[in-house]
C-alpha cells in the first residue's frame, strides 16, 4: 500500500490501515470480484442497499433506491445493490433487476461478509459509509430503514412521512460528516444459514 507521508495524518493512516481489516468484497453478476467499499478518491460516500428478489417490501422500494442513487450521483455518492444470500443466483438476480428496472452496480454477498461488515439484517436496509480519512477507510454513518413507511409486517402507511436516508444523504452532499445513526429496518431477514 502506498501512503502519502504527511507527519501526523500519515501515521494515523498507517495505524488504521493496520488496525482495520480491508473492507469485504463480493462478486458481480459475471462472477468477478468487486469491493463496493474500496473507492477511488473523489467518492464522498457509498450507499449499500441490501435487497433480495423475493422480498415484497424490498421490491416496493426498488423505485426509491433508483431515484436516490440518481439524485445523489452528482454529489459523488455511489450506490450499490447488495444481494446477501448464500444461494444468490446471477440469472435470478439479473431477471430481478430487469423486472424492477434496477441499473446499479451490484455485488453478490454469498458469505454475508458485506452484510456483517455493515451490520445489516434485513432487506431492504441501507448502510451509508463516508470516506474521509487519509486512507479513505469506510466509516459507517447510517444503517437502517430508507424511510418510515413500514412500521412492521402489514403495518405501513400509504406513504412515508419521514425520509431518514434522503435527509442524511442531503447532509453528506453538503460536505457534512454525520454521527452514526441507526434505525430499525422492516423487511425480510437475510437468509443466513442456520
Amino acid at each position: 500500500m502506498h501512503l502519502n507521508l504527511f507527519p501526523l495524518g500519515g501515521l494515523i493512516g498507517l495505524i488504521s490501515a493496520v488496525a482495520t481489516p480491508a473492507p469485504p468484497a463480493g462478486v458481480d453478476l459475471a462472477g468477478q470480484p468487486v469491493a463496493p467499499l474500496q473507492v477511488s478518491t473523489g467518492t464522498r460516500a457509498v450507499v449499500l442497499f441490501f435487497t433480495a428478489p423475493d422480498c415484497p417490501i424490498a421490491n416496493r422500494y426498488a423505485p426509491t433506491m433508483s431515484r436516490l442513487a440518481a439524485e445523489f450521483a452528482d454529489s459523488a455518492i455511489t450506490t450499490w445493490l447488495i444481494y446477501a444470500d448464500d444461494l444468490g443466483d446471477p440469472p435470478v438476480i439479473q431477471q430481478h433487476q430487469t423486472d424492477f428496472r434496477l441499473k446499479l452496480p451490484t455485488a453478490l454477498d454469498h458469505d454475508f461478509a458485506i452484510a456483517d461488515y455493515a451490520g445489516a439484517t434485513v432487506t431492504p436496509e441501507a448502510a451509508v459509509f463516508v470516506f474521509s480519512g487519509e486512507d479513505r477507510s469506510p466509516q459507517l454513518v447510517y444503517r437502517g430503514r430508507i424511510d418510515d413507511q413500514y412500521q412492521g409486517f402489514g403495518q405501513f402507511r400509504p406513504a412515508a412521512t419521514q425520509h431518514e436516508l434522503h435527509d442524511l444523504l442531503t447532509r453528506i452532499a453538503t460536505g457534512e460528516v454525520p454521527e452514526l445513526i441507526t434505525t430499525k429496518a422492516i423487511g425480510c431477514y437475510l437468509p443466513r444459514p442456520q
Partner: protein
Amino acid sequence: MRVQLQVRRRARPRLKKIGGLIVGGLVGTLAPAEPGPDFATDIAPIIYQNCIDCHRPGGIGPFSLTDYPAVSRRARQIAEVVEDGYMPPWKPNPHRSPVLIGDRSLPPAAIDLIVEWAAAGAPAGDLSSLAPPIVPTQDWALGHPDLIIDFPAAYELAAEGHDVFQNFVLRIPLAERRFVRALEFLPEASLVIHHAVIAFDATPQSRQRDEADPGLGFTSMDRGRASTPNGHIIGWTPGQVPYEVYPGTAFELTPGTDLVVQLHLLPSGKPERVSPRVGLYFSDEPPTRSGFVALLREHVIDIPAGESAYPIREEFILPTAAAVLGLYPHAHYLGRDLQIYAEPPDGTRRWLMHIPDWDFNWQSDYRFATPLELPAGTKLVMAYTFDNSAANPRNPRNPPERVRGGWSSFDEMGEVAIQLLLSDRSDLPLLEEAQARYLIDSGEKSADTFYNLGLALDRQHRFPEAISPYENALRLDPTNAAALNNLGGIYERLNAADRAIPLYERALAADPALTVTRLNLAHLFQRDGRTVEAANVLRQGLALRPEDLPLRLALAESQIAGRNAAGALVTLEQGLPWHHQDPRLRFHLGQIRLVNQQLEAGLADLQAVTNLSLLTDGSVDVAATNLIRGNAYFALALLAQQRRDLPEVERRLADCLAVRPHHRDALLMSAGVAMIQDTPTVAIPHLVGLLQLPPDQRPTEDEVLGIMPFPDGVHVWAQALAATGQGDTAREFLARHAAEARQRGRPEWGELMESWLREL
C-alpha cells in the same frame, strides 16, 4: 420454553427421549429437555395446509414455501409473521363470529410450534419420510365457467405510489337474461391486487364515468350506480373461496348490464400489468328466495388529531326474522377495532364479527358456513373505533391531523354491509323500508334514499304513505323519471287521474324511452276517451323505439277501441320486420286482418301462431306459448263455425283444449257441439271441466243452457253437477226446471225431468 405438552402433535420416538435424558444428565443442572419440533414431523403439515395456497409457484404469495430449503431459509421471518398474526392473512377474531367459510386463522398450538422450531434453528428432521405437498393449481376452482369476461387490455399499474382504487367497466356479452349461481375471480397478475369488489350496473353511468377518465377504467372509491346484485356481497381477496349463491338465490343478469370490477391495487415496485378474469356460472333456476343487504353507515365522522380511540356506533333493527349469510366491514386507514354483533330481543349478544386490528389493506367480505338465524326485532350493531394518534403505524399523517368522513381513502369511513336471507319473499319491502328509514334518520337525505322509501311502501301497497317520500325525492331531483312514474301510478290507483297524467308526462319528458310510463299514460287517456292523445303518446314512443312490441300492441289496441281498424292494421303490419316470428304480433295481426276482410291473410296468421313459440331469454316460454296458441286455435274454431265446417270446429276445439285444458269458452263450445251431434256423453266431461274452473270463471246456468238444446241440455248439466259431487244442487236444479216446465204448460217435459231426477 413454550407450552410443549399442549402443542405436541404425536408421541416422540422413544429413543430420542432417552437421548434427551442423557444430554440432560450430562449437563446435570438442566431439566431433561424434550427434543423440539422438526420440519418433517411438525412444521411441514402446518405450512402445507395453511400457506401454500398462496405461497407456491405462480401463487399470490411473494415466494414459494413448498419445500424444506425454502421454509428453513425464512424460518425467523415466518415465526415472526405467524406470531404477530400477519400470516396467514386473516383478520377476524375466530372466537367472535360464527364459523367462517375459508377461515385461515392458525390455531395457537401451530403458531407455538413454528416459533419453537425457528428458535431451535429450523431442524429438518427425517425429510425422506415427508411426502411432497399437493400444490393447488391456478385454474378455475369451480370448473370451466359458462361465461368468461376478460379485460379488453391490461391496466398498467405504476411501479410506486399510493394504493389505487380503479374501476373497470366490462361489457357482458349476453343475448338473453341469465341467472348467476356462482362467480369466480382469477387475479392473474397476482401480488398487486389486494381486494376486488364485483358489482353490476344496468345504467350507463359507469360507462360514462369510464369514458370521462383517461386510460382503462376510472379511479374512485365510490362505485356510484354500480352495485352488487340484490341481496349479494361479492368480493375477492387473495385466497378467498369463490362466491357461490345460497341455494335458491341465483341473481338475474339482463342483457346490456355491465360488469364493474373495482380493484384495490398496491404497487409492487415494478410496473404491473393487471388483467384479471371473471367467470360466471349460470343456473336455469330463477331465484326462489330473497336476500337483502343491510347497510349500516356512520355519517358523521370527525376525529381530532391525536385521538387514539374515537368511537362510532350504529344500530339497525330488523323488522322481520332473517338469517345472516355474511358481511363486509369497511373502514379506512385509521380504523382500529371493528365490532359487529346482533342483539335479539331476548337480550343476548350474538357476535357477527370482531376485527381487533383492522388493516385497510387486507379488507375482505366474509361468509358464514351456516346462516345465523335472527328473530324479528333484532338489533344489528356496528361499534368501531378509530386511531388517529401518532402511535398508529398506519396513520397516513405524521404528525396526525383532524380527519373527517368522506370517500377518499384519506378521509374516514365506517360501515358494514350485512347479507341477509329472508324467510319469506314478501318480507323484502319491509327490510327495504327499514333500510331507507334508517338512512334518512342517520342523515342520508338523498333523492335515492327517499325514492327507495317510496318504492318500499309502494310495494307494500301503502300507497298514500308512499306519496310524501316520492315527493321528497322529486324535490331533490325534479327529473327523477322513476319517481315521477311511480307517483303517477299511485295517483292512478287512488283514482286521481288528473294528478297522475301530468306526472306521467313529466316522467316522459325526463326519459322518453320509458315504455311503462307511456303505456300507463296512454291507458289513462284511453280510459277517459281521449283516444287521439293515447294514440299520439304511443306513436311517439314507437318513433323512438320501433322494435318495442308492447307499445305497438297497445297502439293497435287503442286504434281498435277508436274503431280505426285500418289504422290498427297498418300499425301491426309495420311491426312485421321485427316481430314476424312473434306469436303475439301475428295473433293480433291475424284478427285485425279478418276484421279488415283480409280473410286469407288473417287465417294464415292464426295458423302461423299455432306453430310459433314465445321466447323468454332465448328459451321457449311454454306457458305463455300455450296461452296464445290456445287463443289462436279457438279463433280458428270460430272461423270454422262461420263456415259451418263442424268437423273443423271440433278439431280446432280439441287442439285448443290440448294446450289449454281449462279454456272456458272452448269447453263451453265443445259441450254445445257435442250436444248438436247428439253425443251427450262427450259433452259431460266438458261440462265437468267447466264446473272445476275457479268460481269467478264458471259459466252461469243460463250461459250453459243458452248454448244447448232444450231439454237435453238440462239433463247433461244435471249429470255434470252430480258428477262433481253437487248432487243436491243437481236435484234442486232438476226439480226447479220440472216445475217451471209444468207452469209453462209442458207437463211432458216436467215428467221427463222428474224421471231424470229419480235416476240421479
